[in-house]
């Protein structure tokens, strides 16, 4: 419970903002809650709102979600190696709830203690409920929340990601990854329309890690 309370407090304003943004794009509160409940991936939901059209284009939002969420492949691959206490089916079920924050907390926990299904459920269930309900509340109360941009609430989501980035710092190698990723993302976003910048930045960061890793191998040999 102590692990999850700051995450809940951070996700509620983000959920409220998502709901408020979604109604301005023409989604009903039910549709907003449905998206939060089924997709449960804040980043791709915000990106979808960014490019939302009427009628909705399932190909463009589906492809955007794939680009934004492709990182989950690596997140579940990484966490999967730390889920020995989970039975086969439970492992797959747990991974359905791999939002960034849940994943980051679970990775952190795995460094301290054996990851158990009960601990994971205690982390994921309240977070899931908070995300869906705050999205619904934001969509219902949207007009009363005031301008989210003036309140700075749209910034809560990038701020959470910045805090998570800082948590992954492991030395100069991480610096190289961040510089490569950031530069590639900004350049791609400037020249290429759409959300390709996420994939471009991720690939650039990965290449930087491989390059700095192989250079160190050469030095030690």
């Amino acid at each position, binding site marked *: 419970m102590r692990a999850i309370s700051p995450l809940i407090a951070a996700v509620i304003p983000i959920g409220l903002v998502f709901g408020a943004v979604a109604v301005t794009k023409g989604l*009903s509160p039910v549709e907003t809650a449905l998206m939060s409940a089924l997709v449960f991936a804040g980043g791709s939901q915000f990106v979808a709102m960014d490019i939302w059209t009427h009628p909705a284009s399932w190909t463009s939002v589906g492809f955007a979600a794939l680009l934004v969420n492709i990182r989950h492949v690596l997140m579940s691959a990484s966490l999967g190696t730390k889920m020995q206490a989970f039975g086969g089916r439970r492992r797959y079920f747990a991974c359905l709830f791999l939002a960034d924050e849940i994943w980051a907390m679970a990775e952190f926990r795995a460094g301290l203690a054996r990851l158990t299904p009960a601990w994971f459920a205690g982390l994921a269930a309240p977070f899931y409920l908070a995300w869906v309900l705050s999205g619904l509340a934001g969509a219902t109360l949207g007009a009363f929340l005031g301008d989210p941009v003036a309140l*700075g609430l749209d*910034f809560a989501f990038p701020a959470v*990601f*910045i805090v998570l980035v800082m948590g992954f710092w492991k030395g100069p190698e991480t610096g190289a990854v961040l510089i490569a990723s950031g530069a590639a993302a900004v350049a791609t976003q400037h020249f290429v329309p759409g959300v390709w910048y996420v994939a471009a*930045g991720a690939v650039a960061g990965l290449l930087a890690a491989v390059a700095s890793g192989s250079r160190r191998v050469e030095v030690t040999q």
Partner: protein
Amino acid sequence: MTVDFSTLVAIIAMAAVTVLTRLSGLVLMWHVSLEGSRRKAIESIPPAVLMAVVAPTAFATGIAETIACALTAIAALRLPMLFSVALGVFCVALLRAAGI
């Protein structure tokens, strides 16, 4: 309180690809062993992806966002997540109100 058909299809498409990405990592691990440098490369993915997501906000949106991102990053070194995020939001609201 209605659900539009094309909206429903779009939501299901998003949900389907998200589920696919969340489960394919587990399936992948049945076939790939993570040793040495490959493991290091995989470990670099989370910061690489998160950075790619926030970089346009941090460096190419406005001065208020850039300053608030820097402040949030510095705060994250010492403070818990909630305080760092609140500080960043407060900072960006203040700077926008000041017209920066």
